[in-house]
């Protein structure tokens, strides 16, 4: 059975409508145009809606086929509409994103953060290294008994170190500690071996202020007391520390020296950090920098603290934190550390 003539005509009309609709939809570039298209073809008075209504004029046998065709046309238009909608939205989003482009070279919004003082930074590093070696941190008073500052350290009554030129006195018996060493006997009196401590702290000497001197400065002391501690252990421990703080390429050199509270005593030099040992202004062309005074704890010091020097031995070392910090960061004037210009503090 072939369609009636009227049906054929209607099919042609439908094709034309579909054709137009598809063309118009795909040409739409914004949502308004798309809506206009939708209304024009699928709205209540839209062309396809009107066409559907006109189907009543068809002979009943033609209706199912025509109905199917109309529905297909409707589906295609709707499909294309939603497809085109996606296209338009995507294009709009692209455009918006393009518009939103910013100048990424404009500086970031920086949140303020302060910094620790360079002395603290260096000390934190030193503490970290020694804690890894089983050392604890102890601290003592800055205003100290002359007994702990001198006598307990085997520095006799008439020793030049006690001179008022070097030491600030509060009373005849109380001084501003001239080193962190008084906390060695303090620790040994309180703690029985094994002892492994570092003692950081602020110390005072009667020096006028200049680029390399300050009446206030800082030391880090180390003390180990146990059975069988040797000079070799001092060497091994300090070498390990220096390599961790300044790098594996730094060597240490121990030479005999003298301190009243250690025997044997040593002065410890390290490869100059500035020139790597080639010789420069900082190391006075020697390639070495003096880093620490050290030695085996003097038996009289042990004895005075109630530690039997026949059974126990120990070593101690002391170094200048300020000097170490200055070397580490290349700071050439000690006064900068205490002036606290924020442009200085910001750099650490």
């Amino acid at each position, binding site marked *: 059975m072939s369609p009636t003539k009227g049906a054929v005509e209607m099919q042609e009309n439908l094709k034309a409508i579909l054709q137009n609709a598809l063309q118009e939809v795909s040409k739409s570039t914004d949502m308004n145009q798309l809506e206009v298209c939708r209304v024009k073809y699928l709205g209540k008075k839209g062309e396809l809606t009107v066409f559907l209504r006109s189907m009543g004029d068809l002979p009943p046998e033609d209706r199912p086929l025509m109905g199917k065709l109309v529905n297909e046309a409707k589906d295609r238009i709707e499909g294309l509409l939603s497809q085109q909608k996606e296209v338009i939205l995507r294009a709009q989003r692209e455009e918006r994103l393009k518009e939103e482009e910013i100048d990424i070279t404009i500086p970031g919004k920086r949140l303020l953060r302060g910094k620790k003082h360079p002395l603290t930074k260096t000390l934190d590093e030193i503490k970290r290294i020694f804690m890894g070696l089983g050392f*604890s941190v102890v601290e003592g008073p800055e205003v100290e008994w002359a007994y702990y500052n001198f006598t307990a350290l085997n520095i006799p009554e008439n020793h030049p170190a006690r001179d008022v030129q070097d030491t600030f006195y509060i009373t005849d018996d109380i001084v501003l500690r001239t080193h962190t060493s008084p906390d060695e006997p303090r620790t040994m009196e309180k703690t029985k071996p094994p002892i492994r401590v570092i003692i950081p702290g602020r110390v005072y000497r009667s020096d006028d202020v200049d680029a390399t001197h300050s*009446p206030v400065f800082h030391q880090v002391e180390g003390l180990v007391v146990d059975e069988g501690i040797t000079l*070799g252990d001092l060497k091994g421990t300090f070498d390990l520390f220096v390599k961790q703080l300044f790098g594996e390429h730094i060597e240490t050199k121990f030479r005999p020296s003298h301190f009243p509270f250690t*025997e044997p005593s040593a002065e410890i030099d390290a490869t100059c950090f500035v020139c790597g040992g080639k010789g420069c202004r900082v190391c006075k062309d020697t390639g070495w920098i003096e880093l620490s005074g050290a030695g085996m704890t003097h038996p009289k010091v042990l004895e005075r603290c109630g530690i039997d020097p026949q059974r126990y031995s120990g070593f101690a070392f002391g170094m200048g934190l300020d000097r170490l910090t200055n070397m580490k960061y290349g700071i050439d004037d000690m006064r900068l550390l205490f002036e*606290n210009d924020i442009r200085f503090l910001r750099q650490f």
Partner: protein
Amino acid sequence: MLVPVNWLKDYVDIDMDVKTLADTLTMSGTKVELILDASQEISNVVVGKVIEMKPHPNADRLLIAMVDVGDRVLQIITGAQNVKAGHYVPIALDGAVLPGGMEIKTSKMRGEESQGMMCSALELAMDLNSLSEDKKEGIYILDGEHAPGTDITKVLNLEEKVIEFEITTNRPDCLSIIGIAREAGAVLKVPYRKPVIEIRKTKGNINDYVKGITIEEPELCYRYVARVIDNIKIEPSPQWMQKRLIQAGMRPINNIVDITNYVMLETGQPLHAFDLDKVGGREIIVRRAKDREEMVTLDGKKRILGAEDLVIADEQVPVGIAGAMGGEFSEITRGTRTVLLESASFNGYNVRMTCKRLGLWSEASFRFVRGVYPGLAETAANRAVMLMEQLGAGEVVEGVIDIYPEPVKTKHVEVSSDRINRLIGIDITAEEMKDMLERLEMAVKADNGMLSITVPAFRQDIEVDYDIAEEIARLYGYNNVPKTIMEGSWVQGKKTLKEKLEDQIKDVLCGLGLYEIQTYSFESPGVFDKLRLPEEHHLRRTVEIKNPLGEEYSIMRTTLLSSMLNVLSINYNRGIKGAGLYEIAPRFIPREIPLKQLPDEKLTISLGIYGDEDFYSLKGRVEVLLDELKIRDYSFRRAQHPSYHPGRTAEVVIGEEVAGIIGEAHPDVAKAYQIDTRVYMGEIDFSLLMEASQSEIKYSPLPKYPAITRDIAVLVDKETEVGRIAEAIEETGGELVEKLELFDVYTGKQIPDGKKSVAYSITLRSKERTLVDEDANRIVKDILDSLMDLFGAKLR
């Protein structure tokens, strides 16, 4: 101490370059500070081999030498008769420069060209003292064979190096040429020698010249040795001696004085020469000075002395200050005929105190202060008179007066080789140790690992086994001791609570934009006026330094505010727009004055900010800090403090205790520190934070039921503190008030005079159920009612 190397070589055979010598000595404890070059300038002087000597055709007394100088043969005219063909001699080439600046040029002598000059020892400024007689005269004939053309300075070792040593205080025995020679000998394992003392001829007897010598203070003068030299001829000392003195840093004066200095440098024993005719009664008394006793010292200055000073006196007046300086009256002059030579040992501490008080320092006092071994006195005196005789400065009088009440005893130390090995961390035999110690002039018996050691008396530093260990370690070489890792009990490295908290506080404050500062712990008492503290304020009671660097550094600080303000001021006055700083440091609070016990060192946090900041930005930081430390029960209370703005200051209260104070600096205080802007600052006690802080963290479950948020704005009197309103809201709302946020405080348009609008956002939540609008309405109504009752607050 300056040591001319050629002088050192008189007493020890050194066969290495100076740099190696210096390094070796440094590594064994005799530290070299510097190597100085005191060499004369010599250039273009080379070794020449004499090929032929022939007579000069035009002059009887001259000879023509044909000399191979390596690359050519030169014709040189000479008057010297000691040169033969085959000799190697120093040749100054055309253009050569000799010591003293003399320049050598090719010239004609009696018609024959001389293309250079043969040199004598004198012309090369060689140390004649160290040469044999035949080398001193005529052209210097080199020993052995040398390649012609070689630089003469290399062949003859003409360099004059001077080593500057830094001798540690325990080794006064090294403060001399001989001491260093002894040390070098031990370290380098080469022989060292002492000068041989030989006095050829003596006259008379010392007792006919000197009436007597008395030591009244044997505690201060351990030994006094005197010798006399008669028929003195004062003249300059010889060149070689002058050269050595200059190289060692001393000024030549005349033969007698120079010899005393020379022997001091050589032996370490300071000597003094008196004009015996000027010593009243020809008698020496070593005594304490009388109160305000006067004398004029060698430098022409009048000194006023006291009982704490030791003097060398004649029968009436002082002729010298012991160990420090001689008197002008008895000084050696051109007219001196008889010399009394003093070689004495004085108490170092006493010399130090006297020198310090008089501001007198010299090579002699330096040695006394370090400790001169009394055993040296006689040797040094004899060495000096020997030189005086040798140089023809006078005739030595027979006899020595030697007052030595208590001779120094030698010490004995017993120690096992095992103990020494265990202290150092090495493993060497008792025999090896014995050998090392013997090189240091110790007498050692080694028996079954036990070392029995007799220590020479000049080593006053050695007392116990550890001292022996040091000697072994340094001769073994510290650098040869293996680096080891400690054995023994394992200990864990721990931080104390205080440290952990300090670390945390620093982290938090840095995170809040503050920079850590470090400032001096002492300051001027004047800061209290700058801080507007009244006369009787407790912070004015301070720990005072007896000998400060100056008034500005004379008290230990009792507040950190002044240091903080100083730093803020430095930054502000350098044009920095804003800064936020903190410091954690102790304040020193005396427990009583004068101090009988150590002061309380109260660790304190100080804060200071200026710039785009206000009271609330400081307060906010403190709140964050306290929150971070898990301190719960804190509040801020209006407070008064003379250093702060009267209306912008708060106490930080934790529990019931005042932990600190924060606020705006009083404008007069800011002004006193030259800060022309608003400054906010504070101080908080560290230990109170430590007590209140909680290190434990316990999680609380997230809320199960939704919250309701209501905003209210009320009108209250302007004076009403919002803190009180918040308290009332929380009180009324009870535990249903989860969060309370002040979002607006407003005065101005639409607000009646004397009133302000305060707006809160209140978040309500129940732990048991979902709150509904009715709940919220009821609670807000209750809150508004109570605000009305308490503050007359009206809803806007």
